[in-house]
């Protein structure tokens, strides 16, 4: 045996070929826009998870002496760098605490929608048939309903609460994930390695879990990043309309809504949370776009060229 193949043995040294994961990280470090977006989101996440819990009290403590306290003054300490609101609460504390609820609500909604949609999409894409038909018609129905209007109606009836809000948003976002997962499953199902698994004798459950799931996951993650931005906007919108979060839970939408009537006297109460929403949604969008581009071999070549300054 060894005689027959020893002269045709391929080279043993395969370690020198690079792992694309690290290359991608290096690529991110060289691209200012997605890098900034990633840094902003990470900082916001840290603030929301680790800083915000200490600021709950400050975010709700009223101090009538500091009503409409203007921003960029240092006498009242860092809590009042961005000014005070109509009841003299610290804008900084409110913004950070608002970030926490925004992330928490939007994150949970997207998390629930993504994992549920992922699972349903995999199963209905792999098996097809009546299950798939029913699921996809349901998705069509959800998509045709204007989601904001539907959420408004449901929250109006059920009453606004964090739990209801998450549920409503998750259902509204479910079809996106279901369809993405299903579409990818449909194409991956036809790949040869799935046929190989069947020829080995693997069960459908095993094929879905071992073969298809790992390949659909990155796309789901990319879509989730995009949806996170969209959902944060939706949360802010619903809060602004008064069916979202209620005091003492505040988010940026609530702040914009509260500050609206004082636009003439204290612009900062509206503008700062507005900017926060804008930056976060934008960052999520940019990062999601970048993730998609890097995952696509056609586009990643052009990215590398841009970064390395190639082609002239």
């Amino acid at each position, binding site marked *: 045996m060894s005689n027959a193949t020893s002269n045709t043995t*391929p080279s043993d040294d395969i370690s020198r070929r690079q792992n694309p994961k690290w290359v991608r990280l290096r690529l991110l470090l060289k691209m200012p826009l997605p890098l900034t977006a990633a840094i902003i989101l990470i900082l916001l996440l840290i603030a929301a998870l680790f800083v915000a819990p200490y600021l709950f009290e400050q975010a709700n403590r009223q101090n009538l002496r500091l009503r409409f306290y203007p921003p960029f003054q240092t006498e009242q300490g860092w809590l009042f760098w961005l000014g005070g609101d109509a009841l003299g609460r610290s804008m900084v504390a409110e913004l950070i605490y608002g970030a926490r609820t925004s992330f928490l609500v939007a994150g949970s909604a997207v998390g629930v929608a993504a994992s549920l949609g992922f699972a349903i999409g995999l199963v209905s894409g792999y098996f097809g048939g009546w299950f798939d038909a029913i699921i996809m018609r349901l998705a069509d129905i959800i998509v045709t309903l204007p989601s904001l209007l539907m959420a408004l109606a449901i929250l109006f009836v059920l009453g606004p609460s964090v739990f209801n809000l998450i549920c409503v948003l998750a259902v509204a976002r479910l079809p996106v994930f279901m369809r993405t997962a299903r579409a990818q499953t449909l194409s991956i199902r036809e790949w*040869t390695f799935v046929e190989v698994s069947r*020829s080995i004798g693997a069960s459908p459950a095993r094929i879905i879990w071992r073969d298809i799931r790992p390949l659909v996951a990155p796309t789901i993650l990319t879509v989730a990043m995009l949806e996170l931005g969209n959902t944060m906007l939706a949360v802010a919108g619903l809060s602004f309309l008064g069916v979202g979060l209620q005091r003492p839970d505040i988010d940026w939408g609530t702040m914009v809504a509260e500050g609206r009537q004082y636009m003439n006297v204290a612009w900062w109460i509206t503008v700062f949370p507005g900017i926060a929403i804008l930056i976060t949604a934008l960052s999520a969008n940019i990062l999601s776009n970048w993730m998609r581009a890097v995952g696509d071999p056609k586009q990643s070549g052009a990215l590398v060229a841009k970064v390395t300054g190639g082609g002239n």
Partner: protein
Amino acid sequence: MSAPTTKTPPLLQVEGLSKHFVLRGRGGNKTLRAVDDINFTLEPSETMAIVGESGSGKSTLARSLLRLLEPTSGTVHLRGQSLTDMTHKQLREARRSIQMVFQDPYASLHPRHTVAEIISEPWRVHRGIYPQADYAKQVDILLSKVGLSPNYAPAYPYRLSGGERQRVAIARALALAPQVLILDEPVSALDVSIQAQVIKLLMQLQLDMQIGYLFISHDLPLVRLVADKVAVMYMGRFVEQGPADEVFAAPRHPYTKMLLAAVPNRQNAPTNEPASEPTNPFDIEAGCAFAPRCPMAQDICRTTAPNRQTGRLAAHSFTCHFSQ
């Protein structure tokens, strides 16, 4: 083996195997006979080649044998056991004995699994072959069988060349120690400088392990080197089959002759330029499927389907009205 009085059934016996696809259309249903009435047997250490052009039904035949596609009719027996009558659960178990190597090693290996995971996957599906602790050792043994070093075990497929990938695919197919290996164009997706390596490896493995090979290919020069038996497939049927030496030396069916004449090689440049395209598989109403392309077609060929004739050797048969 078994008692001397009873004859051992063939390793693989295929009888009357057909796979028809019904396509529903406005003008009524149409039947595509992708595989039609296929008969052959395969013994250990034997290589049976199935040659034909794209659309001839070679790959559909391979998938019907394994019941990756459900055959319309006919039987497949493995050592006397009917694969076609098995439940899905029994079938999953039986697939241990028949494994397949696919054409494209870039598509047949999962991009997110390491070489070790890919090769040991069959053992994870069929528990109890080796204890889990032995997987790493057994993977190394299989890697060395296909001429790769153990260094490849933790590597992901993207780091391998086409030839290395196909070796991994072969190692996976061997993991369950199959008795029959279906090789679906195993080298046609590889670079020319790699093809000979992989062919030699496969044939050496057959010598060592006495596996029966079903070698599907369109590459006639290659088939000539490896096959013991050849079947020429055209529009779902075997139009000629027999011992490889005999079919290559004395082809009897006009289609076999046409295929052999069309091979571009250093000795002869092809000389004819007729526009002889495969016919639409739905158009065949009566007569011989090859008649529209056949240089020697007569009226009878278009009206009556030809019968099977026997050539100089009893094992050599072909389907044609004429016998020269």
